[in-house]
C-alpha cells in the first residue's frame, strides 16, 4: 500500500519495483491523497489499484483509508511504503518474513543497530525522534529505534485494528504504534536502508514538522485520539 500526494514522477517506478520484489499474489494499492498532478493516472497505468481521496486530507487519513480497503479485502498481510522511492522494494521480503515469523507489526528501521550505514537526519529531527521513542517506551514498554518509519508490514489483526482506530494526523503512525502496543500486538523492527528521495516534496518541514512531533508525542503520552 502506497500513500501518495503529488508523486507522479516516482509512483509508477515504485509500483513496478514492488511487483518485481514480491513473489505470489500481490495487490498494489495507491492511496492518492487528493493530488493535483497525474499521480492517480500514472498509478493506474502501472497496474495499481487506485483509491482517490477527493481532497488532500493528509498522510494519516490516506493510511487509514488504505487499511480500511485492506481489511475489506481481507488481506493476510499489508505493507506500507512511500511513493517517493525512499524505501527500497527489495527489502520487502525481509519485512514480510518477520511478519511470518510471528510479529503483528514490523517496522523498517533506519536507525537499527544492524544497519550498515545509519540514515542521517538533522539534529532537531534526531532529538525529536529520541523523545518520541522514550515516550513510547515509557508508556507502552516497547523499545523502538525508528518509530516514525513509514515502511512497515503487518498481519491481519493489525490491519483490522488500524482500519478502525488509526487516528488521522500526520505522524500519527506513532499513535498507531502506541495503539498496537496497547492492543497487545507484537511489534518488531527490521534494519532497512533508505534511498534519497527520488522526486516530489516532503510532507512537512520546519515549524510544521516541530508542531506535528509535539502534537503526536503529546497524544502518545496522553493516550487519546488526535
Amino acid at each position, binding site marked *: 500500500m502506497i500513500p501518495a500526494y503529488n508523486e507522479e514522477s516516482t509512483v509508477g517506478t515504485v509500483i513496478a519495483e514492488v511487483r518485481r520484489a514480491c513473489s505470489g499474489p500481490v495487490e498494489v494499492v495507491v*492511496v492518492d491523497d487528493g493530488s493535483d498532478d497525474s499521480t492517480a493516472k500514472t498509478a493506474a497505468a502501472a497496474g495499481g*489499484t*487506485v*483509491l*482517490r*481521496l*477527493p*481532497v488532500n*486530507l493528509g498522510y494519516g*487519513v490516506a493510511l*487509514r*483509508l488504505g487499511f*480500511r*480497503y485492506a481489511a*475489506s479485502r481481507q488481506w493476510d498481510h499489508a505493507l506500507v511504503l512511500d511513493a517517493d522511492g525512499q524505501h527500497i522494494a527489495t527489502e520487502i521480503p525481509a519485512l514480510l518474513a518477520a511478519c511470518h515469523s510471528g510479529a503483528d507489526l514490523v517496522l523498517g528501521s533506519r536507525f537499527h543497530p544492524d544497519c550498515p550505514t545509519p540514515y542521517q537526519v538533522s539534529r532537531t529531527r534526531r532529538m525529536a525522534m529520541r523523545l518520541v521513542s522514550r515516550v513510547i517506551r515509557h508508556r507502552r514498554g516497547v523499545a523502538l529505534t525508528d518509530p516514525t518509519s513509514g515502511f512497515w508490514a503487518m498481519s491481519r489483526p493489525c490491519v483490522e485494528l488500524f482500519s478502525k482506530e488509526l487516528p*488521522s494526523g500526520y505522524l500519527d503512525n506513532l499513535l498507531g504504534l502506541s495503539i498496537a502496543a496497547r492492543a497487545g500486538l507484537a511489534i518488531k523492527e527490521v534494519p532497512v536502508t533508505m534511498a534519497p528521495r527520488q522526486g516530489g516534496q516532503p510532507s512537512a518541514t520546519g515549524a510544521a514538522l516541530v508542531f506535528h512531533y509535539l502534537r503526536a508525542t503529546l497524544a502518545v503520552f496522553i493516550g487519546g485520539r488526535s
Partner: protein
Amino acid sequence: MSLTARIVSALLAAVVVAIILKLQRRGGMGSKYGLLWMATSVVMLVLAAAPDVADTVGDWLGVEYTPSLVFMAALGFVLIVLVQYSWELSRSEQRIQVLMEEVALLRRELEDLRSGEELDDGSGVSE
C-alpha cells in the same frame, strides 16, 4: 455610569441583537448558536440599561470593583465557548475524513463494477 456610556453600550447590544437575528434568518446560523448569542446579547442589553444589576451581583459575591467581575464573567464565557468550538471542530473534521474515505472506497467499487460490466459486454454474455 454616565448617560452617554449607557446609551452607547445599549446601542452596541442592540446592534449585536440585530446582527444575530439577521444571521439566523438569512445567514444560515443554526438555532443552537442563535440561542446562545441571543441570550448573550440580552445580558448585554440588561447590563447596559441597568448597570446597577452588576453592582448588586458584585455586592452579593463580595467583589469590590464591579467592572472586574463583568470582565471576568465575559472572559470565562468566551473561554468556554472557544473550548466547545474546538471540540465541535475536531468532531466535524473527523466526520469529514470518514466521509471522504467512504467516498474513495465507493468510487473504487463503482469503477470496478463498471469495468466488470464492460468485460461482460465484450464477451457477449448476458443474463
